[in-house]
């Protein structure tokens, strides 16, 4: 595929949208063909907006208002198997209800794109944003992005179509954005004026294996012990290798639209003695905390992880190997585990003890001062490595 790149020629306009509406606009500009969704807070405005696009004739797509999330993912899996570009979105319990179908979309190698307005799991029922939903789907084979603001949510959703449909990938892609702190917050962003530019960037490849009456195939066969390993390994390897496509797609996006994000970003890490590692919307707070720490003479840095799967190990080692103390602020419990979910993986990646904190659980409010204090405690040796501590938890 050759792309005529006319740098600087992609006209964009500055508007203000919530994260949900930005993700919906991205799916619309990528001209999705089938949308199936079920309402759940905080995802709802995203799928409401898509229904408006369809019913107002702004998007030529089929919108299936299904009777539950299990059917939402099943319907887009069916539509994708038919060759259509598809989109769905959910949160928390809805993702839990989809769980059965999550690894099937991977095994069938279908480039489903899903928005996740992140939310805590029940019980107690909590509609607010943390990352327990996203963390529960890490091992199933999806490409998983975690974004930090509305602009990145928009841009990443468009990138997701290009990455998932790439002939060397053919995998489902999830774009996770904080429930409420991104999904419902109005922020300024730049969007392309012309949908054609988005379609030049992410043309529908239809290169995956499909249901075709002229070329009949059976999809979803029984995989006996003689074959399952090889078939599943192909999906495993495709996910591992997709990191290259993620980077290429991001770089091309940068060339065309002027914004790229890499696998994550670092802030003042070069000479840092202590680094706050996190994901999602609170990366901005972490950077503020870094500035405050540096004002007090503590050489701090921050890092946000954008790509949860495939796990960007090399990137993380490059950025953090030189940092003495690393503290991960995890936003979902790793019940019964040693440290937080991302802390577990980062400690393994860096092959040394790190620090683990829990924050924003059930969307408990936090701020840069709280993150600063956490990093201070780490810097001063007041907390033990590989023993989680909590930011903002009441009680003893």
């Amino acid at each position: 595929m050759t792309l005529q790149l006319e740098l600087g020629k992609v006209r964009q306009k500055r508007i203000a949208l919530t994260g949900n509406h930005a993700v919906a606009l991205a799916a619309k500009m990528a001209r999705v063909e089938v949308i199936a969704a079920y309402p759940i807070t905080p995802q709802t405005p995203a799928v409401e907006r898509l229904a408006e696009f369809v019913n107002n004739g702004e998007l030529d797509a089929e919108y299936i208002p299904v009777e539950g999330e299990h059917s939402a993912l099943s319907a887009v899996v069916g539509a994708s198997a038919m060759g259509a570009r598809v989109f769905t979105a959910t949160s928390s319990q809805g993702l839990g209800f989809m769980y059965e179908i999550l690894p099937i979309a991977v095994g069938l190698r279908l480039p489903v794109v899903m928005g996740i307005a992140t939310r805590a799991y029940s019980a107690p029922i909590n509609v607010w944003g943390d990352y327990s939903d996203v963390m529960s789907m890490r091992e199933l084979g999806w490409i998983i992005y975690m974004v930090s603001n509305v602009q990145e949510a928009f841009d990443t959703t468009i990138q997701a179509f290009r990455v998932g449909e790439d002939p060397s990938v053919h995998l489902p892609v999830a774009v996770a954005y904080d429930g409420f702190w991104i999904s419902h917050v109005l922020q300024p962003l730049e969007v392309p004026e012309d949908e054609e530019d988005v379609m030049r960037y992410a043309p529908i490849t239809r290169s995956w294996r499909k249901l075709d009456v002229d070329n009949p195939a059976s999809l979803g066969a029984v995989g006996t012990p003689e074959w399952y390993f090889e078939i599943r390994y192909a999906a495993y390897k495709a996910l591992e290798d997709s990191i290259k496509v993620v980077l290429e797609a991001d770089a091309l996006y940068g060339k065309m639209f002027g914004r790229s994000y890499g696998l994550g970003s670092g802030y003042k890490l070069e000479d840092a003695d202590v680094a706050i590692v996190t994901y999602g919307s609170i990366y901005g707070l972490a950077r503020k905390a870094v500035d405050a720490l540096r004002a007090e003479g503590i050489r701090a840095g921050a890092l946000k992880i954008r790509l949860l799967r495939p796990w960007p190990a090399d990137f993380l080692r490059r950025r953090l190997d030189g940092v003495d103390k690393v503290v991960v602020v995890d936003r979902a419990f790793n019940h019964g585990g040693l440290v937080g979910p991302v802390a577990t993986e980062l400690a393994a990646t860096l092959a040394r003890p790190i620090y683990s904190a829990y924050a924003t659980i059930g969307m408990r409010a936090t701020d840069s001062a709280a993150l600063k204090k956490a990093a201070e405690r780490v810097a001063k040796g007041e907390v033990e490595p590989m023993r989680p501590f909590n930011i903002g938890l009441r009680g003893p």
Partner: protein
Amino acid sequence: MKVKVEVRGLQLPGARPGAAVEAAYEYADFDLPEQELFLPGHGLCASCTIGVIARHMLKVLGPDTIVVNPTGCAEVSTVTYPRTNWAVPWIHVAFGNGGSVASGIEAAIKVLKRRGVIDPNRKINVVVFAGDGGTADIGFQALSGMLERRHRVIYVMYDNEGYMNTGIQRSGTTPLFASATTSPAGKKIPGNLTHKKPMALIAAAHGIPYSATANPAYLPDMLEKFRKAAEIDGPSFIHVLQSCQPGWRFEPKYAIKVLELATETGYWVNYEIEDGKFRITVTVPRRKPVECFLKLQGRFKHLGKEEIAFLQKVIDEDVKRLNEMAGGEFIGPLDPEAKC
């Protein structure tokens, strides 16, 4: 009126010639294509009638058909990588989502036709071929959603009255008193204590254009129902009774015989609901006692006189109700003296 039943290319072992001769109306003369779209070499049990249903379903629907096959006997027995018995596009996703996967496929066909990816003049059938567990139990919600949203999908439920693939557990369509591994005939409880879900009536209650019951022993009637379903612009549902040797425990040669007796005793009534009009499509002038149906099958062998009498009463009432719906005595009175 007697109708000569001649279906070309059909050689059903165990089928009595003219099994459906007492049908109330003249069947369409089916000229079935020679082409096989459900291929031999599958792993279905000896005498399993799933193959009979699938093969004839595809002969009626033709090659431009996409099959959604939720988890179940048909699925595990026909597509084991790298082999398949389906010469049409086929997909298995999971157990409880036949209705929603088909909804997505049908929606995709519509939009891809509008966008010129698929020839807009090409008629492509989407059929769900699901068992009773995948339809009446775990797939019930997805089915209801698909019917309510009026996707143009033909939903064929092959009902062997239990989870036969996993080893004969009871389902929502297992009949009263049948012994299954999760409703065993015990010293205290005589097997399954629930009634069969009337899936075709439940489907029809969604206001869909076509819902029917069928029985492979009454082949022309079943074929006609597949044909009608394919012509309908909207959802259709066909509940097909399917005999299962290991689950029902009959001698393999009686796979069709037991299905005939299901209808001859009034245990299974073949009907259709077309645009809200209820019609019994295979009449039975005089019913045989239900014992004729029961005694061929090991799953009922624990029943005493009392249970059999109770089952007979249940059938009498069901038949009365269906006759009332049809507006006439299309299923006749019980003939207690009838030979099985």
